[in-house]
């Protein structure tokens, strides 16, 4: 407890070691599985610099160094201070990369500095979270102020749209997750509900027919209307009328959405995106093409069974049936070699980590720390859901890494920094209060 005289709490009590341990375990799991994923029939050492596990070892060690600096050297106050310039700088980088970057697998999102490549989209998650936290933590901030609302939308929207322009759909999608942080800060839950209904209608229209979606939409709106009439019977007429108007507007928006579905699907989405969605929804079979990744990935995971085939004994993993196995599809290696137990462990580690972050965020007296914590939790959640969902055929193939586990320096550094900024914020607060 707080003691008079500026006594600080010991390091043991002020750092959330649960999070640190979770982080370390996940990084280690990632490293071991990257080794398994690239391990071919000629066994090379896990430290071999020429193979990915060796390189990852270097990324991990440098990430640890960053973690140390953030936790013990850099004053956490700085993050709040630099949030605006950092955000602006990164947005500039995001735009610059469109023109100056190199093209990797159809997207222009990588800078190449000699042998090292780096992806500004990874950092922009951090800067966006920081700026968002800074803006929203102001005591004058009200979610439903028009200007505040627009500011928030712009902070999230600018990097998101820029990244979309880079054809990094996956990274852009992660920004949608910030809505959870906004929700915590008072945004109406209806935005999330509407978002989900839109997705359901979109899928339903694609898979079945526009009129089935229309019926569903009609029923939903009718139910909502009845609910409003019932719950507002004591209110004034104007209130009731405006509520009813809202349902009608929602209905019209839904109708527009349904009729736009095919247009969006056929004209807005790019070819590969359309195919991925078609394969996911089972509208087309393409086992050799787009469906190949998912099929092979599900075969690898499914064949792992309960306890897996054992470290380096995955037949699908070792022989490279799954593309992008050390990066976006690293979860396959876990699924195949460690089985359901391994998958369960990894998912539970993530879930615990997110829950602990949320708990720490809630306990914080600082708005900035709290909002930043939620932004971090949202990002982790989006990556977790999209990435694992993709490997097991619940989501279309969207190329985003599994945080801390996937091979790659940018991603590992970005998540390390992002997580340790939060741990540092939390540590600083606990230290002095």
């Amino acid at each position: 407890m707080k003691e008079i005289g500026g006594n600080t709490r010991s390091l043991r009590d002020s750092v959330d070691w649960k999070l640190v341990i979770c982080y370390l375990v996940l990084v280690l799991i990632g490293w071991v599985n990257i080794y398994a994923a690239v391990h071919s029939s000629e066994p090379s050492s896990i430290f071999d610099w020429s193979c990915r596990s060796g390189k990852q070892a270097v990324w991990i060690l440098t990430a640890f160094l960053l973690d140390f600096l953030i936790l013990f050297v850099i004053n956490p106050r700085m993050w709040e201070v630099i949030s605006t310039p950092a955000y602006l700088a990164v947005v500039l980088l995001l735009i610059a990369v469109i023109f100056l970057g190199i093209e990797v697998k159809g997207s222009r999102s990588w800078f190449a500095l000699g042998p090292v490549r780096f992806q500004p989209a990874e950092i922009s998650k951090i800067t966006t979270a920081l700026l968002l936290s800074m803006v929203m933590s102001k005591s004058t901030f009200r979610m439903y102020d028009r200007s505040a609302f627009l500011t928030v939308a712009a902070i999230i929207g600018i990097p998101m749209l820029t990244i979309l322009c880079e054809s990094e759909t996956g990274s852009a999608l992660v920004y949608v997750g910030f809505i959870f942080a906004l929700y915590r800060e008072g945004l109406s839950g209806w935005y999330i509900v509407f978002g989900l209904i839109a997705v359901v209608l979109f899928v339903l229209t694609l898979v079945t027919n526009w009129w089935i979606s229309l019926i569903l939409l009609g029923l939903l709106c009718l139910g909502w209307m009845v609910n409003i009439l019932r719950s507002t019977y004591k209110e004034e007429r104007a209130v009731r009328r405006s509520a009813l108007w809202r349902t009608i507007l929602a209905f019209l928006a839904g109708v527009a959405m349904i009729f736009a579905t095919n247009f969006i699907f056929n004209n807005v989405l790019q070819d590969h995106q359309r195919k991925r969605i078609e394969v996911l929804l089972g509208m087309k079979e393409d086992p050799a093409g787009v469906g190949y990744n998912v099929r092979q990935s599900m075969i690898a995971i499914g064949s792992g069974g309960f306890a897996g085939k054992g470290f380096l004994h995955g037949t699908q993993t070792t022989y490279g049936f799954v593309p992008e196995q050390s990066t976006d599809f690293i979860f396959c290696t876990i699924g195949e070699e460690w089985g359901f137990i391994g998958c369960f462990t990894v998912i539970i580690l993530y879930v615990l980590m997110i829950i602990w972050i949320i708990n720490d965020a809630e306990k914080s007296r600082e708005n900035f720390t709290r909002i930043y914590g939620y932004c971090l939790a949202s990002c982790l959640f989006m990556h977790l859901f999209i990435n694992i969902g993709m490997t097991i055929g619940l989501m279309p193939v969207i190329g985003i890494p599994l945080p801390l586990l996937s091979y790659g320096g940018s991603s590992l550094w970005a998540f390390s920094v992002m997580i340790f900024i939060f741990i540092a914020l939390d540590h600083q607060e606990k230290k002095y209060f």
Partner: protein
Amino acid sequence: MNLNHQNKLIIGLVAVAAVLLGKLFYIQIINDDYKKDASNNSMVYEYIYPPRGVIYDRNGEELVTNLLSYDILVTPREVPAFDTLALANALGIDVEVIREKMAYYRKYRTRIGYQTQTFLKRVPQEVYLRFAEEEYKFPGFRALRRNVREYPFNAGGNLLGYVSEVDGDFLKKHPDEYRAGDYVGKTGIEAAQEKNLRGEKGYHIRLRDSRNRVMTSYNDGLDDKPALPGKNVYTTIDAHLQQYGQELMDGKVGSVVALEPSTGEILAMVSSPGIDVDILADISSHWEELSNDPYKPMFNRTVMASYPPGSVFKLINGLIGLQEGTLKAEYSYPCYSGYYYSGNHKLGCHSHASPLRLLDAIATSCNGYFCFVLKYILENKRYASTAEALDAWREYVLSFGFGRKLGSDFPSELGGNIPTSQYYDRIYGAGRWSFPTIVSLSIGQGEIGATPLQIANLAAIMANRGHYYIPHLIKDSEGVEIDPVYHEKQYTKVDSMHFVTCVEGMKMAVNGQGMAGATARAAAIPGIEVCGKTGTAQNPHGKDNSVFICFAPADNPRIAIAAYVENAGFGATWALPVASLMVEKYLTGTISPERKYLEDRILNTRFIQ
């Protein structure tokens, strides 16, 4: 729990995690498909085909052995553009064949995937060697060693049977034991002894990567299985006798079955026309020819044809009469060139002394005599009616192995037919038929059908004076045990002493020197006492069938034989020489000079082309 925004988010998080885990639980634990797909994906089973067991004759001669041959396999996914002409030259095939096959693989490439296909079957060694030299030029192609059957002896396709690749229907019936590309014995000994002959397939499991490069042995080869060679099978066939029988029957339609009476072992089993062993090795390319042949070479007459046995059946009627007491050896009946069974209807006979006694009647094969024999059997006062007497008679006949399957170890055996009283009731109405109606049963005609195997078994019963062993083809040998039932004596319902009497008649038929009308004198072999009985079975489809059974030597017989030649005329003329020449060959190893004319005549006569 307070449902504030924080907790709602955590609930949402946990729900999403539960969905992910649920799906993982389903694909990893509940659904097995992915595991199968994974092994299809990465494990390559390289099958090792065991050599099929060798089939020997009773003296250790090889009837069927194995010859090395090769299948050319291809994994279409591995094949780059290549010089089709060079491959065609290496394999000695037309370049169009290669183009067609490659086009087929391209068309079905998604279904074929990484699987290996059989490109060419049964490539002989010299072609394989030529291919092997240039194999490096054709990535994706490789050769698989296989054994094909070789036949040192022309022992008859129907007897040996053929081996061919399993088809879809067969795979459906035996899903666990066989896989596409396996070979299985389809007929004859190959089919009957499939379990012993086939051995057990082995395999190497190899792992391959996503580009189908075979990497290493799976699990260091610990899960590999060596092939277990098939067991060798020793048959009871005498290869030389079998081959001689085939030569004699060449150009004739019919069968010869020779048995060793003291064991029931089948010494020879000739069905003519049959399948030549040259055709047997490559039967699939001869299907059309075989199925269009009017003489049905695939039809194994020895066990499937149901012939009227004709006069050889008189022995059975005589024996039943003696056993029932309605006949005594000393009874004599008149024969007026036949038997008048109702009014002016006569069952004719040839000329011989009349009246005559049983032994003479057997020796001369008198029709009239045996009409009386059956008449008194059926009109026996012990039985309430002719129908009842007929059924009692049928019981006797069945005990001789007629009218039912004998139960040999040869596949596709049929049982022939011995009519029941119900059968005649159905045709004529109950009580509206009597002995004259069915008089032809007296001489083995009418509704009686018997297979050559059953007729040969009758010869063996006569030789054994009243019992037989179920005819069989396989001998006990190391690893192959035959059913003990083949070592059990099967008794007829007629006492042994009556056989002694009838065998005397058979002896007289062959050796009845000076006796007018002894039908089988041509069967006499110098120095060996042969007992025989001729038969001439009427054939509704043309000339009479010629039948002969005999055994020798008379005491301690070593061979019992039945010959049946279709549409050939008198039994004495055709079936007799075939059977007796085989007996002589078997017992003495040669044909005596004074009987050479008989051999020449048979060898030089062809009824069919």
